[in-house]
């Protein structure tokens, strides 16, 4: 009876009435005719089956189980072309944020050791060298322990974990093959949270000899001289930490760097990486990868003027984008529709076109592909389905950080987006270059330490976007994301007292507008 009541309750969200009228009607019909009766017959084995044990799927599964639902999670990793595979937890834990951040930290430590000599530490920075095998092992050990803790948590929270690829047999039935044999699971609700995987360029040798971010963090040999194809955040981060660890790194850019981000900031990040010795090949497209007798990879490419180039590399890493893993699910058996070129799923409040099938995470059309977004959406969805909640996911003003050697953190609108949405006459952009105190002693380059605030011009100047390039950008931008969600204005920001000496305080000191044409460079060290 309790479940029955909950079932009714979850169809009473005000949110379901706001958005898509057609969908709303389908949904309500189903309430009356289909789900309502089926639940009473108690004909499903599970209240919720989750396809994909990554950030979003696991968060939803654990929350649903805690609310009393019977839940199963299916997770399966198809090995990469060179055979890399991993455990439960999804992209972030295994081949994404976590190993990336650790390798980024490894690279930053190399810089710190060099700085340390200036701070009086008696060492020989010129002789330091990173041991790839040790770093890889440390990173992989951490991942393995996270995999274990995840399995313990699922078991402890009574979520059934099935190591198999789940596919739809019909709208309420999932089939899978595990080591123990074939299984069929029926569920009242199904959550698609299968995420995505990197794509390879459609050129000879790409799949045979190339690797992706799925392989780099567990690569059994030193990456050596590496060509990264693609200049999105994944490509830049990989090139950045590889260079920091001592490897020659080149980024091949098709059109623009960090397409999804503020282009002025992207330009500064590019220059900052070039200053550190990362090579960039602009307006170039790869044409082939061949393996030479000595094991090295011979890469040919052309630029936009059709000039041909070639070079040899030890590693070619494709970071040209990711594909949602929806094709594998036999969605046609459930009637779930895909949209766009990326095989994505369009949702309204995580609900697909099939009312009892939901989706979160990187499979979603036009939503930020970020772990905390998936986690939050998954949790809120579970609370709406199995608890009393009506709280909806807010996909706006999500802060993020690109962990390039000089980090770039941002939240809200880019300058371009603000100009487009509000018009140049209604936007004020504050900006400043700044000098981190700790950079003076080791004489580190400060020329790329820059921040800007995009605000409305009138009245209190509501802040629309914050952008920061510098050390610890992620740590800095997080708190400001909360401020933006509290309707931060320029007058509040300017009246906030800073912490001295930090780099975060620069946001409170910012006072030069682009419109004024004044020099955004600091006047002296302590001005």
């Amino acid at each position, binding site marked *: 009876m309790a479940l029955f009541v909950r079932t009714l309750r979850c169809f009473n969200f005000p949110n379901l009435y706001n958005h898509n009228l057609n969908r709303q009607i389908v949904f309500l019909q189903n309430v009356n005719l289909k789900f309502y009766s089926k639940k009473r017959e108690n004909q499903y084995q599970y209240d919720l089956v989750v396809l994909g044990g990554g950030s979003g799927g696991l968060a939803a599964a654990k929350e649903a189980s805690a609310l009393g639902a019977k839940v199963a999670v299916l997770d399966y990793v198809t090995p990469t072309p060179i055979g890399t595979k991993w*455990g*439960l937890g999804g992209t972030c834990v295994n081949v994404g944020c976590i190993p990336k951040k650790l390798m980024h930290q490894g690279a930053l430590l190399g810089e710190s050791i060099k700085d340390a000599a200036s701070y009086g530490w008696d060492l020989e920075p010129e002789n330091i060298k990173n041991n790839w095998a040790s770093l890889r092992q440390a990173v992989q*050990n951490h991942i*393995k*322990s996270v*995999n*274990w803790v995840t*399995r*313990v948590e699922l*078991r*402890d929270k009574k979520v059934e974990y099935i190591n198999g690829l789940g596919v739809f047999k019909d709208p309420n039935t999932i089939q899978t093959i595990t080591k123990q044999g074939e299984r069929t699971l029926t569920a009242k609700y199904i959550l698609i949270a299968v995420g995505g995987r990197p794509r390879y360029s459609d050129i000879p040798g790409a799949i045979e000899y190339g690797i992706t971010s799925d392989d780099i963090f567990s690569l059994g040999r030193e990456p050596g001289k590496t060509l990264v194809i693609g200049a999105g955040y994944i490509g830049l981060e990989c090139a950045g930490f590889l260079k920091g660890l001592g490897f020659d790194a080149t980024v091949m850019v098709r059109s623009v760097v960090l397409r999804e981000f503020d282009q002025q900031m992207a330009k500064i990040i590019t220059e900052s990486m070039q200053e550190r010795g990362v090579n960039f090949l602009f307006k170039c497209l790869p044409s082939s990868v061949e393996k030479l007798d000595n094991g090295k990879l011979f890469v040919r490419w052309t630029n936009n003027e059709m000039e041909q180039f070639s070079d040899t590399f030890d590693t070619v890493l494709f970071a040209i984008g990711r594909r949602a893993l929806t094709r594998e699910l036999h969605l046609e058996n459930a009637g779930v529709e895909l949209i766009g070129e990326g095989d994505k799923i369009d949702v309204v409040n995580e609900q697909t076109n099939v009312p009892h099938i939901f989706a979160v995470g990187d499979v979603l059309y036009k939503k930020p592909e970020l772990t905390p977004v998936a986690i939050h959406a998954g949790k809120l969805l579970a609370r709406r389905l199995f608890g009393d909640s009506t709280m909806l996911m807010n996909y706006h003003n999500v802060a993020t950080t690109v962990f390039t050697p000089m980090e770039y953190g941002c939240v809200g609108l880019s300058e371009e987006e603000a100009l487009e949405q509000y018009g140049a006459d209604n936007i004020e952009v504050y900006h400043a270059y700044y000098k981190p105190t700790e950079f003076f002693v080791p004489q580190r380059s400060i020329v790329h330490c820059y921040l800007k605030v995009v605000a409305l011009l009138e009245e209190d100047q509501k802040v629309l976007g914050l952008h920061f390039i510098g050390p610890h950008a992620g740590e800095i931008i997080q708190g400001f994301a909360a401020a933006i969600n509290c309707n931060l204005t320029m007058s509040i920001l300017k009246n906030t007292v800073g912490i001295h000496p930090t780099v975060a305080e620069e946001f409170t000191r910012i006072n030069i507008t682009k419109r004024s044409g004044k020099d955004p460079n600091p006047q002296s060290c302590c001005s």
Partner: protein
Amino acid sequence: MVKQHQIEGYDQFSEFMKNFANTDGEVYVYFSGSKLPSGISWCPDCIKAKPIVEEALKLAKPNSHFIVVDVGSREIWKDRNCPFRTDPKTRLLVIPTLIRWGHPQKLEGEQCEKPELVEMLFTDEE
């Protein structure tokens, strides 16, 4: 048949692990509080976990080793500098702690009282 070993204190543990050459099977190490003269451990959580761990151990592969390490008296364990806490190989935070040696599988404190978790530790194949 799982081979069982009983170790008392850090010195013996350290010496045993140094000489322990295991070529086959998994090695499980179970850290708990030493027994009082009455024959039972001074650590109440260890007493609760003991039957659960012993029962689940039956599921371990027969070529496994099960090493029970009594960390010492309450006084020894509560010392912040207790070598079981500081040794990077153990870094214990709580007792009981059950570890598949050299692997990520580890259960701490109350987790050792949950049969479903302890069984998973002894049978996990990932």
